[in-house]
C-alpha cells in the first residue's frame, strides 16, 4: 500500500507534515550536516526583523521539568542578510522555507513581508505575533483580537505568499484569535508559541535567566497545546499547524487527530537533531498498523467517545 504523507496548507503542498519550528533550528543551514533539509515538510527560520538584533544577555535558557524556559530575545541577522546569505543556500538544499516575520510596528511587518515577497524561494510567511520575550516583539498584536486582525490584514494585502500567524497561548481563548486571523485572510494559523514562565534560583533568590521571564516549551506543555489545537479546529476552517512538546510520531499524530494539518518540532530537535527520520519512520509504521493510506485523513479524526474504564 503506497503511503501518502503529503498535506496542503492553502496553495502549498508539503511532502509530509513535519516542519522545523522557528527559533529551534537556526536558519536551517546549521543542521545540513545532520539532516537532509529536503526530507522535511518545511523549515521555519529564526524570527526576522528588518534589522539585525543582538538578543538578550546569557544565560538565556534553563531546563525545567520535562521542558525548558528560553528568553533568547530574537537575536537575528535581519531580513536583508537572510535573503542574501541564507535563502539561496536553503533553496539549494531543497528546503521549503517558511520565514518567521517579526515587527515592532505594523509597518515593519509589512515591510519585511514585502522584501520576502520579492525574494526567490520563500514558501510561506509565519507571522510572529506571539514572542513572549521582548516587549516590542509583536505580542501587543498577538494578545489583542483587533491587533491580530489588523496585522494579518495589512500583511495579507502586502504579499502573495501564504500568511500563517503564529498564535500565543498566553490568552484566555486562543480559538478566538485563530478566528480573528481567519477573518483577516490568514491562510493558516500555527500554535502554540511558548507559555510565559519563570524560574528562581532559591539559593541566590535570583532569576535563572537574565530576562527573568521566558517561554516554556517541551513535553511539559504538550497536553495544553493539544487542547488548544482542538479548540481552534472546532472554530476555524483554515489549516492549523500544531506544536508544543512533540517528541515522536505518536505525539505528532495526537496533534493531527486534534485537528492539526501539519506539525512543528522545536525543543526535541535540541534533544535529538536526528529526530526527523525517526518521526517519519514512526508515521509510516502507524499508517501501516492502522491501514491509513493518506496521512491527511487523520486530521481532526479524534473520536471524543469517552474511553472505557480501566481497572488496575
Amino acid at each position, binding site marked *: 500500500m503506497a503511503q501518502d504523507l503529503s498535506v496542503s496548507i492553502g496553495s502549498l503542498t508539503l511532502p509530509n507534515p513535519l516542519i522545523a519550528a522557528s527559533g529551534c533550528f537556526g536558519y536551517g543551514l546549521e543542521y545540513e550536516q545532520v539532516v537532509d533539509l529536503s526530507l522535511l515538510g518545511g523549515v521555519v527560520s529564526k524570527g526576522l526583523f528588518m534589522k539585525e538584533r543582538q538578543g538578550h544577555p546569557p544565560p538565556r535558557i534553563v*531546563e525545567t521539568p*520535562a521542558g525548558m524556559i528560553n528568553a*533568547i530575545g530574537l537575536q537575528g541577522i535581519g531580513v536583508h542578510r537572510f535573503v542574501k546569505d541564507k535563502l539561496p543556500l536553503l533553496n539549494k538544499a531543497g528546503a521549503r522555507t517558511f520565514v518567521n516575520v517579526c515587527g515592532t510596528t505594523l509597518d515593519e511587518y509589512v515591510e519585511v513581508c514585502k522584501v520576502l515577497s520579492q525574494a526567490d524561494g520563500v514558501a510561506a510567511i509565519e507571522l510572529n505575533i506571539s514572542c513572549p520575550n521582548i516587549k516590542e516583539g509583536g505580542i501587543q498584536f498577538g494578545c489583542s483580537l483587533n491587533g491580530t486582525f489588523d496585522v494579518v490584514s495589512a500583511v495579507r494585502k502586502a504579499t502573495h505568499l501564504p500568511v500563517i500567524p503564529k498564535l500565543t497561548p498566553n490568552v484566555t481563548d486562543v480559538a478566538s484569535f485563530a478566528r480573528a486571523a481567519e477573518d483577516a485572510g490568514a491562510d493558516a494559523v500555527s500554535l502554540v508559541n511558548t507559555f510565559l514562565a519563570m524560574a528562581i534560583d532559591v539559593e541566590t533568590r535570583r532569576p535563572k535567566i537574565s530576562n527573568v521571564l521566558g517561554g516554556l516549551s517541551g513535553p511539559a506543555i504538550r497536553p495544553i497545546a493539544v487542547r488548544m489545537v482542538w479548540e481552534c479546529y472546532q472554530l476555524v476552517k483554515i489549516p492549523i499547524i500544531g506544536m508544543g512538546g512533540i517528541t515522536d510520531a505518536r505525539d505528532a499524530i495526537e496533534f493531527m487527530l486534534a485537528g492539526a494539518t501539519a506539525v512543528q518540532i522545536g525543543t526535541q530537535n535540541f534533544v535529538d537533531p536526528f529526530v526527523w527520520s525517526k518521526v517519519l519512520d514512526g508515521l509510516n509504521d502507524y499508517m501501516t498498523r492502522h491501514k491509513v493510506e493518506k496521512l491527511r485523513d487523520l486530521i481532526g479524526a479524534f473520536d471524543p467517545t469517552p474511553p472505557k474504564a480501566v481497572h488496575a
Partner: protein
Amino acid sequence: MYHIRLMPPVDIDATVIANTRLSRDYSVLSLAAPEVGKRTAPGQFVMVKPVGVTDPLLRRPFSVFEVLRDASGTITGISILNKRAGRSTRKLYDLEPGDVVSCLGPLGLPFKPVVAPMEAWMVAGGVGLAPFATLAESLAASRTPATLFYGARTAEELFYLDFFERLGITLVVTTEDGARGTKGRVTIPLEAALKDVGASVAMVYACGPEPMLEAVAKLAARYQQPSQVSVERVMGCGLGGCYSCVVPVKHGNEEANLVRSCISGPVFDGAELVWPSTSLRPRD
C-alpha cells in the same frame, strides 16, 4: 587553517564501559562510542545525557577527555571528565557499566595546533583539565614542547598527573590550600613563567572557570603571547540551533557580537573575547 578536516557529528547510544570515580565529585565516564572517538580533534566536545529520559531533557556539553584505544591501538570510544554540579551531572556520576547514554559529537571547533619552536602552555582550572589530555597527546606526537599549568582546590583533585608526565609534558601545579604545588591560583606560576620569556614564545591554551579564563587571556596579552581559550556556556543543542550559548566576540575595531560558542567555539582567540563577560552559570 585546521590540519584535520572536521567530520560531521554522529549520535550514538553509547554503553558505559566504566565510570571511574576519581573523588567525591569527579568521575571519568568511558563510553563505547568508537565513531565519535575516530572523528574527534582536541578541544571538540560531545552532548551527553542518559538515554530515554525527560529528566534531564536536554543534553549537556562535555569536552572529549580521552580517545580510548584497545591494546592494538584501535579506537574503542571516548571518555568525559564529569564533575558533579547539578542534577544532570549527578546522574552521570551515578551511572554504572552497562548503562546507556545518548552521545552526540564531535562538535565545535578544536584547538589550533602549534609546532616547535613555538611552545604550548596549557592552563587548566579544575574540570577545565578535560580538553587537555587529547591536546597533550597531539603535542607529544608532534614533539612540541609543552607545559601544563594545572590548578585545583585540593591535592586530591589533581588528576591524571601520571598521564601528562608519561607524555613528557612539564607539570606546574597549584592548589588553593597549598597541599601540593604553589598555594593559590594557577595564574601565579603562569605569570612568573610569562615574565621570563620573550614575545610570541608560547601559545597559551586555557580551560576552566570564566574568571580564570579572563585572567589568563589578559596575562597572555600583557606578555605578548597568543592565546586560545575554551569556554563553557549553558548550551541547549550544540549545533547552532538555539542561540543560548553565546559569548561576546570582537574582531579588531568592530563592535562586539554575540557569537554561538557551540559552532564558532568553544575555542576562541583569547584576544577576541570581550571581558568581563556576562554571568556564567554552573552546569546543572
